[in-house]
């Protein structure tokens, strides 16, 4: 029986990186995964939860759980921080023993970040991609420390034909995005972002890859501001590129 994946597209990926989502669908289907898209979904509430607005976060979690609670199979998303919210924070929002809590625990257990899902459930590291460029990898904080995904994205990248993976100095240091942090403390966010851009530029890579839409927005914007020729891309962009940079 085919593995089933319910797409959890997340706000930022939907608004700013729709091609990542389309690529994810095509890649999963090519690997024999049955992909479904619960169309009623909106925001998981992460920005509210992380900013202390728990009552709003709870409302959005209830809505999210209603939408995904009706589905079966895995729930798969291209964004580490959103998955971290579902896996680790949804259960905290509800009283143990309540119906919502049960739903949250169930959803947490079947929600996966894309690279996690690919490596551990689909059991694919070589997806037949080709990308003859120098690439460096930025470890997004919530993907890395929230979900413990350290090796999966790099294993996927290493299997790509022609790709040269260059280590990024300070790979595991935050890029300064931090959600609302970027507008609450813009000066600090800027300094952190610029340090990240300098590190990326120092590698001589053509492309920097990350696994979270927030980091990519921040890093891509920073690269553009600095006039750098390095492109920021999502892991999925690389795995579906078929040779050329889009």
């Amino acid at each position, binding site marked *: 029986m085919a593995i089933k994946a319910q797409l959890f597209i997340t706000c930022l990926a939907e608004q700013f990186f*729709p091609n990542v989502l389309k690529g994810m669908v095509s890649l999963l289907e090519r690997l024999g995964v049955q992909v479904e898209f619960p169309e009623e979904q*909106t925001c998981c509430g992460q920005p509210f939860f992380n900013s202390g607005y728990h009552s709003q976060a709870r409302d959005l979690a209830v809505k999210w759980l209603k939408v995904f609670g009706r589905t079966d199979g895995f729930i798969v998303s291209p964004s580490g921080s959103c998955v971290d919210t579902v896996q680790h924070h949804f259960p905290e929002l509800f009283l143990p023993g309540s119906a919502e809590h049960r739903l949250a625990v169930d959803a947490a257990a079947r929600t996966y970040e894309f690279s996690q899902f690919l490596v551990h459930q689909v059991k694919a590291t070589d997806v037949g991609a080709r990308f003859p460029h120098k690439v460096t990898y930025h470890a997004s904080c919530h993907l890395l420390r929230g979900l413990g995904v350290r090796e999966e994205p790099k294993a996927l990248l290493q299997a790509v034909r022609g790709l040269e993976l260059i280590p990024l100095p300070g790979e595991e240091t935050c890029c300064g995005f931090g959600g609302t942090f970027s507008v609450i403390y*813009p000066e600090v966010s800027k300094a952190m972002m610029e340090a990240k851009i300098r590190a990326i530029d120092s590698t001589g890579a053509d492309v920097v890859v990350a696994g979270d839409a927030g980091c990519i927005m921040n890093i891509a914007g920073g690269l553009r501001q600095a006039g750098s020729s390095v492109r920021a891309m999502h892991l999925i962009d690389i795995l579906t590129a*078929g040779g050329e940079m889009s």
Partner: protein
Amino acid sequence: MSQVPTMIDFRRNTQQVPSRMPLAVQKATSKFLGNRAAVVDAFGNEQWQVLRQAGHDIRLHAITHIEHYLEMAEHAVTRAGGHVHWARDAAEARRILLDIASRHRVKLAVKGKSMATEEIGLNPALEEAGIRVLETDLGEYIVQLKGVGPAHIVVPAFHLSKEEIANLFHEKLGVDAPAEAEKLTQIARMKLREEFLSADLGISGGNFLVADTGTVVTVTNEGNGRMCTTVPPVHVAVVGIDKVVPDWESLTVLLKLLARSATGQKLSCYTQFISGPPRSPAETGPAEMHLILLDNGRSRILKTPECRETLLCIRCGACLNICPVYNHVGGYAYGYPISGPTGVLFASQILGPTVAGALPFASTLCGACNEICPVKIPITRILLHLRRRVVEGDESEQAAAPVYLRVGAWAGAAALGSTGLYRMGSELLKRLQAPFVRGGWMARLPAPLNRWTMSRPFPAFAADFRRWWRSRTTAGGKRGTSEPGA
């Protein structure tokens, strides 16, 4: 210095960080982190994780049974001939200390490195009472000369260059000081030696308090801390109630964790154990020993289960060293003597949301601190609770977030929670942005997003996945192929 702050404006403070600060901080923190990584490596990572868990369990056990262990410590100290005082808050702690000082007609007090005395703003209080107080930890001595507080909880003056220190010595001490670490240390040592001999009171903190034997433990890398607790006729230790540990076995575990995490040493140069005044004429040391047990909000922290683990902290400073925010702003931006992630946890709770409501947000929640903390404090989890406390209030504090933010959040969540409004909103944004977009990016945006565009452009709204999905599912009931990179 260290007055108790009235309102911490973290953003303003970050805007005033001297441009040389971040590099100076990063140079020092990367050295500490490198040393730490090497000793942890040598220890073996697996073993290290076992040790961290043990440290966590020991500290959690101690603070969970804090009354029991504090009573035990009190008895032991009293039995050994020491005097124990309980201070509910900073003011009471200062008063107790001033009482002791005035009873002994103290004119000069020498101090070892102590965060607790910074916390209670002891120095200004002593000076106001006409008592000269001298910091003797080299770093503290330097920042005291400069008239500022510590920039780091372990290495207070680490952001200053040798040249800056030489200038400072020249200006304040009137000596010709070459910009060489050894010479500067020598100058400070000579100046301090004279003072030790004439001091009437020695003040110290305590890294740990061993309940079993009533032993105050101090950990330093300079001999001066020990001079403070041995040379003057009276010694007062100011120790937070959270510092209590059950026994010497527990202490061993924590000492191993502390030195490695703080400076990358196996053991600090001086680990001193003080168990009361001399018991016989053959023993030397101050004839009188006082222990001030400082609460200052710690009992309240203990009462909130979500925040309790704040008090596990052994003040190693590793979370400061690894924190990307700290590394770009340094210690002063936090507006509190204890800075960095642990300072945020501590100050937010001790000072409350009205004074320190900005601090829990001074983090990207990257979680590097959680991973490095030797006693496994879930720092970001506590930060999340403290953010919630600012916004919504909890059992112990009232909400402090402005009403417009709360109304905005409510409206935003309501819109995001409705599939119809969400879709409408994303279509509307695509239209509204049109005048701003150039080549897929927006260089300037109105408030509050101008805070984003002041440092990088904002990507254009481009949602079209839902339409794409629809089109391929309705195309003859069969899904069309997707075009990657389209």
